[in-house]
C-alpha cells in the first residue's frame, strides 16, 4: 500500500505538480497585498491619504482661497485648469454645494475624495460656529496619540475572512482534483488491471488513492500558514486553523474520490466537481458557520463555534475513512 503512496508522491514531484501548486499558493498569498491595496483604493480612495492634489474653484460663499465668479470658474474647468467647480449658495446658514466634476471615472474618483475631505473640514468649521458638537475622539497607542488609517478594518477582514478561507479552499480543491486524476488515470489507462494482479486488495488501492492527496495537502497547508506568518500576517491559532483546513480537504477528497470511482471518467468527474465547488464557494466564504471561514477566524484569533468545527472535522474524516468502502475501484 505504501508503495502506491510512494509512487504517487514521486510522480507528483517529478511532474512538477508540487512545484506548480506551491507556485500557485505563493502567488495567491504574495499578490494579496497588492489586491488588497487595489480594492481599498476602489472602496475607499482616501485610504493611505490618497487625496492627490486636485485643484478646485469655488463660486459663491468663499471658504478657501481659490474663489472665482461662475463664468471664470467654468472656463477654468473647461480648459482643465481646475478639476472641479464648487458652487456654494447659502440658504438660512446652510451651504448648498453643487460639485461639478469631470464625467470621467478615474478623474472623478480622485477629485471627489479630495472634495470630500475639503467639505468635511468646512462642515466641522461651520458646526463649531453654529454650536453643533463635532465628534472629538482621540486614539492612543503606547501612550502616544495615533491616526487610524480608515480602511484598516476592511484590509483585516479581507485577509482573514476572504484570503485565508480562499487559500484553505484552494488547497482542498487541488487535493480533490488530484484524487480524481489519480483514480481516473489508473482506470482509463487500464493500469488498475496491473495493480489488481498484485497482492494489493482493491481496498488498499482505494485507501492509497486518498492517502496521497491528504499527505500532500497537509504539507501544503502547513506551508501556506508559514508563508502567511513570514508575510507578517499574524496567525493566532495555527494548530486549530491547520486542523480545520485539513478537515475541509478530507471532505473534498472524499467527494472527489466518490465521484471518480462512480464515473470512472476524468472529464465528467472533474466537471461535476468543479460545478459543485464553484456553487458552494460563496457560502463557504461568507458564513460564520462555514469551516473555511473558521480557518480564517482561528488565524485571526476570533472566537469560533467549536462544536460545529468538531462535528464537521469528525464527519469529514469519517467520510474519508468510509469512502473506500462506499465505492471500490476494483472491477473494470
Amino acid at each position, binding site marked *: 500500500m505504501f508503495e502506491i503512496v510512494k509512487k504517487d508522491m514521486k510522480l507528483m514531484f517529478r511532474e512538477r505538480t508540487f512545484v*506548480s501548486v506551491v507556485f500557485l499558493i505563493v502567488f495567491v498569498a504574495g499578490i494579496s*497585498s497588492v489586491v488588497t491595496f487595489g480594492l481599498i483604493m476602489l472602496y475607499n480612495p482616501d485610504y493611505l491619504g490618497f487625496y492627490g492634489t486636485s485643484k478646485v474653484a469655488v463660486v459663491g460663499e468663499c471658504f478657501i482661497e481659490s474663489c472665482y465668479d461662475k463664468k471664470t470658474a467654468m472656463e477654468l474647468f473647461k480648459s482643465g485648469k481646475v478639476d472641479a467647480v464648487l458652487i456654494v449658495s447659502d440658504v438660512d446658514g446652510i451651504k448648498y454645494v453643487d460639485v461639478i466634476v469631470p464625467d470621467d471615472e478615474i478623474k472623478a474618483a480622485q477629485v471627489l475624495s479630495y472634495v470630500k475631505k475639503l467639505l*468635511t473640514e468646512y462642515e466641522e468649521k461651520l458646526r463649531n460656529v*453654529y454650536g453643533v458638537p463635532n465628534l472629538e475622539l482621540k486614539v492612543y*497607542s503606547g501612550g502616544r496619540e495615533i491616526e487610524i488609517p480608515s480602511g484598516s478594518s476592511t484590509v483585516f477582514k479581507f485577509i482573514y475572512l476572504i484570503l485565508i478561507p480562499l487559500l484553505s479552499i484552494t488547497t482542498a480543491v487541488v487535493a480533490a482534483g488530484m484524487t480524481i486524476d489519480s483514480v481516473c488515470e489508473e482506470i482509463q489507462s487500464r493500469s488498475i488491471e496491473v495493480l489488481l494482479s498484485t497482492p494489493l486488495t482493491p481496498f488498499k488501492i482505494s485507501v492509497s488513492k486518498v492517502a496521497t492527496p491528504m499527505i500532500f495537502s497537509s504539507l501544503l497547508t502547513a506551508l501556506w500558514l508559514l508563508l502567511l506568518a513570514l508575510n507578517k500576517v499574524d496567525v493566532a491559532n495555527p494548530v486549530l486553523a491547520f486542523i480545520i483546513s485539513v478537515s475541509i480537504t478530507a471532505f473534498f477528497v472524499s467527494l472527489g474520490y466518490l465521484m471518480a470511482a462512480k464515473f470512472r471518467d476524468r472529464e465528467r468527474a472533474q*466537471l461535476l466537481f468543479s460545478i459543485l465547488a464553484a456553487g458552494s464557494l460563496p457560502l463557504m466564504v461568507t458564513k460564520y458557520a462555514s469551516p473555511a471561514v473558521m480557518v480564517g477566524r482561528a488565524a485571526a484569533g476570533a472566537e469560533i463555534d467549536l462544536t460545529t468545527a468538531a462535528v464537521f472535522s469528525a464527519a469529514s474524516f469519517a467520510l474519508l475513512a468510509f469512502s473506500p468502502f462506499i465505492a471500490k475501484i476494483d472491477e473494470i
Partner: protein
Amino acid sequence: MNSVLKVAKFEIKKSRKRYGGGSLLLIILAVAISASLGYASIITGIDSDRGIYTTNVKVDLETFTSSSSPDVALFDSKLFVERSDRSLAAADELLKYLKEEHRKRVEKEFGEMAHPVRVSVVYLEPSGITPPERVVEEKEKPPETGGKVSESVGNKSSSGSALKTTTAVAATTAVKTTTTPMAVEETKPTTPESNATYVPPEDIKTPSLVDRMVLAFLFVIPSYFTVQVFSSSLLEDKLLRRLEVLLSAIDRSDLIFGKMLPYLLLSLLSAIAVSIYLNSFLAFLFAIPVVLLLFSAQTFVVMISRSYREATFLLLVVSLLITIYAFIPAVFSTAIPLSKISPITLLLAYIQGEELAVSDLALSFAHYLIMAFMLFYFGMKALNPDISHGKEIFQKLIEISRLSVTSNYAAFIFAFLSISFAFMAELFAILAVFILPQQLMIPALLTCVAVVEEFIKGIIIFSSPTLSRGIFTAIGFFLGEKILILFNVLHEYSIAFLGQFLALPLILHIATAITIALMAKKGYAKALGLAIALHAVYDYAVVMLLV
C-alpha cells in the same frame, strides 16, 4: 473548412455520448444545486465577521463582542489600541460606528443644522459645456448605495418639512443669479424630489467599479466550464493517442479548431447572452480576447503535459494567471492608466458608457490576440508524438521552438511578437516585488526583467544557435520593446524597462543574444545563466549611473 466542421461534429457526438442519459441529469442537478447555493448565499448575506473584534463597552454592532482584554478600549472619548493589525482594525471599525452614532445624535438634537453643508455632485464633460441647449442629466446613483443617503434625508424631512422648500429656493436662486446660459444650470434641481441628491459631505460616494467587476466576471465564468470540458476532451484524445490517428487524415489546424469550435461557440453564446441581459450589446466583444487566450493557453498546456495530473495543475495555474492578468488591472483602473491594457478594464468602461480611445482598444486587443495566436501556433506544432510523450517541459519548449522557428525571419517575427509575453511576465514581476522591502524592490524587479527577457530570447535562439539567429532575435525583441514605448504604455515604468534609451538596449540585446548563441553548445542552462547575469548587471548599472 469542411474538415473543421467534420471534426466539430464528431466532437459534439462524442460529448453527447458522454453526457447522455444519467450523466447529463447529474450535471443539471449539480448546476441546480450550485445555483441555489449561490442564491442562498445572496439572500442570507454575509455574517462571517460576526464578533470578530472585542471591546470593553457594549456596542450595538454585530462585529463586536465584549471582553475583559479587548482589542480596542474606550474610556471617556479616548480610544486605546495596541500596535497590532487586529487592534487597529477594531479601532477603525469602532470609530466608524461611533461617528455614525454621533451623527444620529446631532441630527436628532439639531435637526437640519446638524449638516450645515450639503453636497450634490454633477458629472460634466468639460468640453461639452458651451452649447447651451445641451441638457446634462445627473447620473442616478444605484439604489443600494443611495439607500443610506435617502434614509437620512427622510429622517430630516420628518423632523422639519422646511428642508425641502429651502433647498428648492436655493436651487432657484442659483439659477437666477447667473446670466450666462451654461449647461450646468439645467442640472439644477427644480423639483423637490431631486433635492434628495443634496447629501452631507461624508456621504459623497466616489464612483466604484466593484459592482461592475462582478458583471465582468459574468462574461467569462461560463467559459471556464466550457474550456475545462474542451481541455479534458483534448487531453483524453491526446493521451489515448487518438489525435495521432486523426492527424493522418486531417490537417493539424483543422483538427484543433474543429475540436475547439463547439466549445468556443458555447462560450461566445454565453457572453452574447450576458451582453443582451445587460443591454450593452457589443460588450461581449471585449470578452473575446480573454476567452481566446484561455482556450489557446489550455490547448498549449494540454499539448505539453504528459499526464492528467500534470495537465490539471498546469491548467489551473494558467487559468489563474490569465484571470489575474485580465481582472486585476480593472481593480486599479481608478489609479493606474496602464490598467487599460486589459480588455476587462475597457469592458467595464464600455458598460459604463465611457468613450474608449482607439489606441487603447487596439493595444489591448492586439496584446491578447497575439498571445492567443502564438499559443495556438505552438500548440499545433507540439501536436507531435516526439513532444507529446516524455521529456521535460523545458526540452519540449526547445523542441517546439525548433519546429516553429524555421528561419532567421521567423526568429525576428517571433521575437517581435513575444514582447507580449515579456510584458505580461514583467507586469506579474511588478506585482510580485510589491511584497519585498523597499530597498530590494528595484534590484528584484531588474533581475526578474532580465530573467524573463533572456529566457524568451533564449528559447527562440536555441532553435538553431547561430550568430545570425541571435542577431535577428535581438533586433526583433528590441523593436517590440520600442513599439510598446511608442504606444506610451510603459511611460510610468520606463525605469524598469529602461525605455528612454535607444542605442544601449539594442547593444545589450545583441550582446546577450550572441552570448546565448555561442554558449548554447556548453549547455542551455549555462548560456541562459550567463545572459541573465549580463543583462541584470547592465540594467543595474544603467539604473544606478544614469537615472
